[in-house]
């Protein structure tokens, strides 16, 4: 019997029991839809995190000053002014380091025409934009000569630019920062939220020299809030961390018995943790969804077993007129597989539809890849073969005489 004829027979049998076929299929539909939906949500979360990490820049360290404590109370990092601009310049010279960018921070009031906006101001070096993987929406960053001359130039974050200028092009305009005029040289492209959920686009950047002298200057000249350091290669991050630590201990003249007055954080490690967490989440989601697929599969096995018992006489007749064991096996296996494949296809469409709906209703990123579609389909077929085989085998190994006698 050729395959086409067996498929026709299987379709006929499924058609004869439409309600039962439909209900059994429902198990597969729900299972596959759940798997597709969960995989796409998980994949979406991973993609989102990867984008954030890529936007953050690669091979990054963040070096923050140590914490002071008084009477057992810690005042948090940055409460001592141990890091300086010169520390950053020295670190930049290390063999494993490609750049180091010092940052001071403060809160300022901005004015342009009749509008005003209060935001975070960062004083830094032109390297910062390179290290932090910032791209320009328009204009340029400030330059090394701006830095040397402590020029009054400013680069705007996209949110700040929007609030202050609306649809107007800010480049070349002059804004007032704490009543001092600054020339806007450029606007940064939006980055979105950081891994910790902070808006990275509501801020302005000026040369650190300008900041020191005119905006956020304090009683410790040259002290900085933190520095952003970029290692030369991902492999040498451990070496780079040791080099930074040794250099800073030496520069700060810290005795061997004393603890560091600064902290070096490897952002790549933090990113790895976030990526790992997202990966675990998608695995867990997929595993939970797979359970429903498993339950659907068991439903198919159950129904096929009932079907084989019910149709024992039919099997006997078919054997009497010349069906061999393989023909019977194939017929019942194909019935199970067709339930799975049809259910799988419907489930796939429902899953994609559901994922689309989720992405419309929430602001979650949903990613559906061809691989996922293939995986769901493969899974459905595998479930069909796995759970359909035993009932089909049972049908095929019936003795003709017993099957024919069955009432």
């Amino acid at each position: 019997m050729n395959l086409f004829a067996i498929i026709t027979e299987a379709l006929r049998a499924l058609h004869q029991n439409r309600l039962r076929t439909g209900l059994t299929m429902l198990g597969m539909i729900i299972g596959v839809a759940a798997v597709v939906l969960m995989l796409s949500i998980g994949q979406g979360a991973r993609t989102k995190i990867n984008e954030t990490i890529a936007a953050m820049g690669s091979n990054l360290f963040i070096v923050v000053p140590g914490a002071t404590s008084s009477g057992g109370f810690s005042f948090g990092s940055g409460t001592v002014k141990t890091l300086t601009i010169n520390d950053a310049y020295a670190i930049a010279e290390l063999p494993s380091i490609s750049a180091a960018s010092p940052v001071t921070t403060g809160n300022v009031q901005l004015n342009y025409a009749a509008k005003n906006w209060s935001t975070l101001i960062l004083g830094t070096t032109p390297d910062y934009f390179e290290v932090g993987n910032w791209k320009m929406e328009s204009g340029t960053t400030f330059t090394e000569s701006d830095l040397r001359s402590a020029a009054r130039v400013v680069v705007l974050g996209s949110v700040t630019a929007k609030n202050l200028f609306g649809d107007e092009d800010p480049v070349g305009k002059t804004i007032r920062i704490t009543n001092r005029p600054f020339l806007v040289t450029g606007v940064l492209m939006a980055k979105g939220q950081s891994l910790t959920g902070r808006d990275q686009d509501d801020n302005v950047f000026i040369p650190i020299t300008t900041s020191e002298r005119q905006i956020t200057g304090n009683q410790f000249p040259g002290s900085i809030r933190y520095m952003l350091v970029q290692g030369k290669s991902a492999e040498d991050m451990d070496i780079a961390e040791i080099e930074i630590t040794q250099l800073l201990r030496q520069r700060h003249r810290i005795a061997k018995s004393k603890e560091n007055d600064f902290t070096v954080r490897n952002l790549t490690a933090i990113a790895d943790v976030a990526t790992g967490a997202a990966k675990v989440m998608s695995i867990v989601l997929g595993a939970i969804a797979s359970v429903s697929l498993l339950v659907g599969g068991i439903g198919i096995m159950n129904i096929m077993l009932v079907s084989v018992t019910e149709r024992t006489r039919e099997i006997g007749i078919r054997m009497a007129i010349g069906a061999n064991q393989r023909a019977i096996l194939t017929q019942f296996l194909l019935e199970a597989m067709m339930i799975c494949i049809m259910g799988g296809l419907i489930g796939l469409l429902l899953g994609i539809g559901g994922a689309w709906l989720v992405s419309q209703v929430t602001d979650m990123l949903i990613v559906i890849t061809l691989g996922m579609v293939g995986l769901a389909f493969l899974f459905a077929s595998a479930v069909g073969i796995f759970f359909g085989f035993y009932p089909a085998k049972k049908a095929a190994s019936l003795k003709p005489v017993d099957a024919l006698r069955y009432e």
Partner: protein
Amino acid sequence: MSLMTNYSASPLIRIENLCKSYSLQDANGKTITNQILFNLNLTIYQGEFVAIMGHSGSGKSTLMNILGCLDTPTSGSYWLGEKNVAALSNDELAHIRNQSIGFVFQGFNLLKRMTALDNVATPLLYAGVSRSNSRRQALELLRRTGLENFAMHQPNQLSGGQQQRVAISRALVNRPPLILADEPTGNLDTQTSREIMLLFAQLNCEQGITIVLVTHENDIAAYAKRLIRLKDGHIIVDENNTAGVVSDEIA
């Protein structure tokens, strides 16, 4: 379309010392052996029309199942044509059932919710014939049994006699040399029974198809040319049938 030009020459069925017994577990878990057939010896030649008679429990259905390769003997040998059936694999037995034997049952045993045409065509599908070819051949057989107008009917839309004609068409579709009929008229009225038996007689006379018929009715057995009577698993009578209904009616 005479398949057997030289019938009544060589033996089609040869049974030697055939025994069949079933093992059962009784309530105490002891194995009870229940022997149904005892050392049967039987030869049936091509072109014969044999009726096997006996009361229920005489072993005639068991013998029929063995002859039809639906069941295997416990001991003894069974030669069907050139083949020793006892030595064949399941697939080879399926092939023999498909190619060499046509079954006609008391309860018709048509496949439900399938048209008469598809029922007749199914053995051809198992023989590997394409769907369109098998349907064409099936329609030809239905035409010969006078059912071409019912080809698209399902079994439950047909009368008993019509269903049995469909079953006979199905038995004939692969042109087997042997037809085994297990009480084929058991569910039919007298008039329809007569028509079905005449159809068998006609197939036997005109096409030389060997027919082995199981019945417990004398007037049905009367259509056969040879009569075998079983009692408690033994052959007690094996004789030429002198009643000769066939010659009268066919002539």
